[in-house]
């Protein structure tokens, strides 16, 4: 069990939001922003300038990350970003109905995703393309959802990666239940096959009843689930302050489990903190809340227009904390990578993007039968009849009007 300091946080009364006797809403927001800027509680191993900083508590969780592994994390992030940019472009060209960008959240996702062991389970929201990558899902498999050919393409059992969930917060209770199952099955403990679950959601999601209920259930059943909140500062147009007066990670305390905030743009720190949290779960200490403090550098989705609600200054400030750039600088400065390495990754990324594009252009539309496919596991004769009638009706059109 980790040291309790990690989850005994200053009382909310001590925070900037409560210092003034009667703060105006603006002061409250300003105070939260100040708290949100990180401070002592933020776990960071690699600064935005690419300096490795020592952290006695968490260094041991990334002891095995040498030059090769760090290059691997860099490569993951570059490829995932490239695929994401291609997703945006494909939407702009009318190939996808919508795209949900992850730009800026690569470290938060790769750090968490690479901390998962094969036997662990992950429950994503809809922006987790980086975690999907770590679970062995090809970017192609994500396209179907956004092109509208399938609701969910990958095999969730094989990949141990649940289907994307669009209804905000739903998956948090589902993950708590899955984790309860892991415990009931005796998969928690010190055996090498011990399991844990990680569930992903946004800062906005923390306002949903389902998320609260997931916290309660996981806590009272000591379910081995890591709640991984990517606080990217915005829920479409609404800032985190619209969801909470308290830094989100501090909420964990009220449920009786540890909460921790990590620099979500620092892949090493995200990896270390996630490994620690998963280990807590696996060995039986129950749930952990991680708040990965990051920023959504692109629009919420390709249907969104962030210029209506956020200031460009904010975006500029966060660009300086780019999750990929700091690893690149660190690799270069410490002599862990030659220029050729970066060129190779770039070539690989371009290759991935062009494969993705080709795949997208060649994706066939599903046939009309797809509407009726697998509605029930046990079949439904009434629906079968409805399908047959409809297919007959379609067949009646000469020359394929449909």
């Amino acid at each position, binding site marked *: 069990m980790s040291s309790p300091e990690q989850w005994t946080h200053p009382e909310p009364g001590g925070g900037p939001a409560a210092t003034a006797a009667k703060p105006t809403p603006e002061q409250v927001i300003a105070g939260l922003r100040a708290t949100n800027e990180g401070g002592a509680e933020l776990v960071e191993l690699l600064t935005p300038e690419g300096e490795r900083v020592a952290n006695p508590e968490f260094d041991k969780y990334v002891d095995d990350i040498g030059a090769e592994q760090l290059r691997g994390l860099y490569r993951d992030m570059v490829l995932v970003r490239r695929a994401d940019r291609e997703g945006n472009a494909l939407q702009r060209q009318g190939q996808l109905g919508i795209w949900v960008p992850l730009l800026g959240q690569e470290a938060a996702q790769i750090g968490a995703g690479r901390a998962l062991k094969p036997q662990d389970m992950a429950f994503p929201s809809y922006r987790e393309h980086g975690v999907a990558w770590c679970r062995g899902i090809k970017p192609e498999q994500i396209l179907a959802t956004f092109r509208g050919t399938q609701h969910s393409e990958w095999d969730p059992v094989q990949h141990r990666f649940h289907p994307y969930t669009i209804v905000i917060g739903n998956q948090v209770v589902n993950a708590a239940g899955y984790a309860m199952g892991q415990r009931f099955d005796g998969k928690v403990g010190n055996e090498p096959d011990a399991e844990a679950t990680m569930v992903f959601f946004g800062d906005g999601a923390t306002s949903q009843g389902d998320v609260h209920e997931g916290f309660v259930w996981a806590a009272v059943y000591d379910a081995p689930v890591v709640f991984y909140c990517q606080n990217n500062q915005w829920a479409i147009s609404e800032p985190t302050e619209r*969801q909470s007066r308290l830094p989100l990670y501090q909420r964990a305390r009220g449920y009786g489990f540890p909460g921790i905030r990590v620099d979500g743009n620092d892949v090493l720190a995200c990896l270390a903190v996630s490994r620690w949290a998963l280990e807590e779960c696996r060995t039986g200490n129950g749930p952990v809340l991680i708040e990965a403090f990051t920023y959504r550098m692109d629009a919420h989705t390709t249907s969104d227009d962030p210029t209506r609600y956020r200031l460009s200054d904010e975006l500029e400030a966060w660009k300086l904390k780019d999750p990929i750039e700091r690893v690149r600088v660190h690799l270069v400065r410490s002599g862990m990578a030659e220029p050729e390495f970066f060129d190779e990754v770039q070539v690989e990324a371009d290759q991935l993007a062009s494969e993705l594009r080709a795949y997208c252009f060649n994706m066939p539309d599903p046939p009309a039968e797809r*509407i009726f496919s697998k509605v029930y596991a046990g079949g439904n004769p009434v629906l079968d009849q409805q399908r047959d009638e409809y297919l007959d009706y379609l067949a009646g059109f000469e020359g394929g009007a449909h």
Partner: protein
Amino acid sequence: MAAPVMDKKVAVPAAPTKLTMGKAINMGLRAAMERDPKVLVMGEDVGKMGGVYRITDGLQKDFGEHRVLDTPLSESGIVGTAVGLAVRGFRPVCEIQFEGFIFPAFDQISSQVAKLHYRTQGMLKLPLVIRVPFGGGVGAVEHHSESPEAYFAHMPGIKVVSCANPVDAYWMIQQAIDSDDPVIFFEPKRRYHEKAEIDTDATPYPLFKSRVVRPGTTATLASYGPLVKTCLDAATAAAEDGQDLEVIDLRTLSPLDLDPVFESVRRTGHLVVASEAPGEVSIASEIADRVQRECFYSLEAPVLKVTGFDTPYPPSKVEEEYLPDLDRVLDAVDRSLAW
């Protein structure tokens, strides 16, 4: 049921008044807010952003943050607090961003919104409106294309309406806000961009009444929301073949106003009901039941339903197949006439 009265004149923009349905709802909301300072608009992204469909565009700027609330991301909270606000004397207009996200609020709607008036035998009134963009045809991902209206029409204690054109949209939203009963207001999102001339001096058609939108003699088409336009298009196409179809826009789904439908069926003998929602246990099946009871001797064919299939809403690349279109409506008319 008497139509709500709107007494005060409200500011309207100078000509031209040809407006999209989206803009018409915006203007209707604005008019209601100007008339009554207790009218609040609340929902996710409705303030600064003006809503994901821009239906509330500019309202927060003009009425302030306590009349137009950007709420936390929590539908149970939106509807649940609206209940409290309504009890306190406000008239909240909640926006649920997409119909597929109304279910976190389902508990509040069914347990509180629909029942408080009954439980208190009228001591508590709940004049609140829940606006819900609904229906498919916009190429969206899951949970953004559904037609869940039957769940709510099944719930005694709330009223359910759906507008189908900008003129109705403008008036119906104001009438819904004026109503002392809770109203779920379904907006056909794929028709937000349809335009029409709005005469803001006109006397509005009553809210809880259906309406013949195209008179005809050969057969009757009854529909609501997004499919009214489809039915009108079908009637236009059928006219070329010498058929004269009557089209009825139901407008109110609970209470259903079927008098114009009965009257029409007694003349035509044929009824086709069109809706995007799955057909089983639906508004369409309710209509079929009542029409066969009321018009049994006038019917020359069974009431036919043209609906979405009894499946979850499919991936958008097959939604064209899923959604009833002009061909499916005409096919049903032909089958009815050939009976």
